[in-house]
């Protein structure tokens, strides 16, 4: 067994283990952290497949941004662990049934007749100067240009929809406008008035007492 397969099995074991933890742990914060580990190890597996661009993008987008926001939300939840524990055994048979159906469906599609070594031979390893990034870019902007642009448009629609759904216009706006703050001059706010000094009788009396 070479170094490559040892690495593969270690990473796969961690990936499967962390994926199981995502659904089995009670505390949602730990679940989210297990999901982070799952993403990270699958990125490691992708690097093993010489897909370094996809692997690094997976870390950058999912681990670096999406999961941070996930954790952000999950940490602020007020969780009652007792309530979470209640239904586990009650829903276990139903959950197992769903899981079995899912595994059966996956096995039908990803089984050896479709993805076996005959159908999909092992890819040739590339030379050291092979750039995965350049290859993806070349294909993405030539052959798959329209699907790529379509995906971009769908994402923009989703962004606009999300903003318009969550945007609440408050009637009384209490935010400040930084431009106004920056442009404030002292003479707009304070007026200094020159006055002649005068001697008060009371103050001279108190001075004598000291």
């Amino acid at each position: 067994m070479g170094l490559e397969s040892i690495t593969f099995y270690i990473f796969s074991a961690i990936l499967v283990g962390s994926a199981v933890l995502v659904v089995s742990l009670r505390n949602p914060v730990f679940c989210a952290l297990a999901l982070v580990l799952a993403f990270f190890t699958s990125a490691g597996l992708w690097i093993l497949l010489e897909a370094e661009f996809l692997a690094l993008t997976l870390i950058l987008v999912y681990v670096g941004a999406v999961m941070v926001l996930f954790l952000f939300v999950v940490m602020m939840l007020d969780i009652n662990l007792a309530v979470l524990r209640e239904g586990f055994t009650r829903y276990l048979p139903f959950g197992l049934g769903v899981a079995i159906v899912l595994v059966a469906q996956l096995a039908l599609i990803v089984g050896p007749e479709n993805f076996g070594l005959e159908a999909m031979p092992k890819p040739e390893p590339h030379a050291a100067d092979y750039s995965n990034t350049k290859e993806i870019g070349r294909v993405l902007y030539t052959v798959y240009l329209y699907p790529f642009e379509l995906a971009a448009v769908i994402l923009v629609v989703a962004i606009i929809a999300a903003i318009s759904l969550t945007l609440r216009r408050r009637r009384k706006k209490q935010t400040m406008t930084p431009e106004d703050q920056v442009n404030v001059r002292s003479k707009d706010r304070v007026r200094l008035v020159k006055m002649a000094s005068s001697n008060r009788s009371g103050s001279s009396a108190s001075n004598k007492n000291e």
Partner: protein
Amino acid sequence: MIEAIESALDFLPAGLVTLIIIVGKILVLVLPLMGAVAYLTLAERKVIGYMQVRIGPNRVGPRGLLQPIADAVKLMFKETIFPAKANRFLFISGPILTLAPALAAWAVVPFDDGLVISNIDASLLYILAMTSLGVYGVIIAGWASNSKYAFLGALRSAAQIVSYEIAMGFALVGVLVAAGSLNLGEIVEAQRGSLGIINWYMIPLLPLFIVYFIAGVAETNRAPFDVAEGESEIVAGFHVEYSSMTFSIFFLAEYANMILIALLTALLFLGGWLSPLHGVLPASLLEGEGVLALLLGDGIHWLLAKTSFFLFLFLWFRATFPRYRYDQIMRLGWKIFIPITIVWLLVAAAMVVWKIGPWFN
């Protein structure tokens, strides 16, 4: 030199030799880095001291030069305190998860032509991925501390880093549009030209350069963007419950990240190890074997000098600017930096397409 070590270790199995060489390279990088971190803390206290018309630390050793050593010894021998009801596993993983990505990113940083631990093709992407992981340490530390102040610091930090990462990423996209490569060494070489400083990317990509550096200051949670610590509001933010070594690891990671950002800014926008004297002095003075050519020509010393300049900027910012208010940080990141980077990305792409000189012809 590496070949000599390889031949000297002939008697060992080949895999072991490779391992020894990799570990050796890592030590050669990490030990000076830790030294630099230690003395950066001294430099910070001295520089800020002089800016505030004080002397700064001057008691330990000549002119206070042993102060970082004394600090390190003190931190190592203090007790690590675990807050009651805190999750111990996560409490310990917080600092580890902060330091590990901060050091891992250094694996692909080149210091001179070919002087790099791992010369991978997508090194810029790798650095971006690694620096984006640093936020986990902060979030986990804040949550695991079981303290309100630490938690507030973690939430602030998470929102801030996610916002500034976008601007930072876009600024980097501008650099790779200009250089046509994700490899840091090739990006530096793409800035080589007969005009010296004019050829560096800080001229054609000036807005991206400024946005990148400011976003870098925000990413490292340094003043004026240090709301995650915010002494006046939330005591010390995410690391309020940490003591001794666990605290000093946060410290190490913060300063290692500062040096990394400064070095990357020098590599990406200031021509890295390229000499600024190209085009000023005749080429015959800059090439060759003599001491003068070594000093004036390209080399690691130029990179270190540029890095030191940016590190000085970090300290200068801290001594000069008051802390940003939280809503102002968000406004700056989302409403100013991201539009600027997107517009300048288009400008950079147009300059590359129409081969506008002296940079892209």
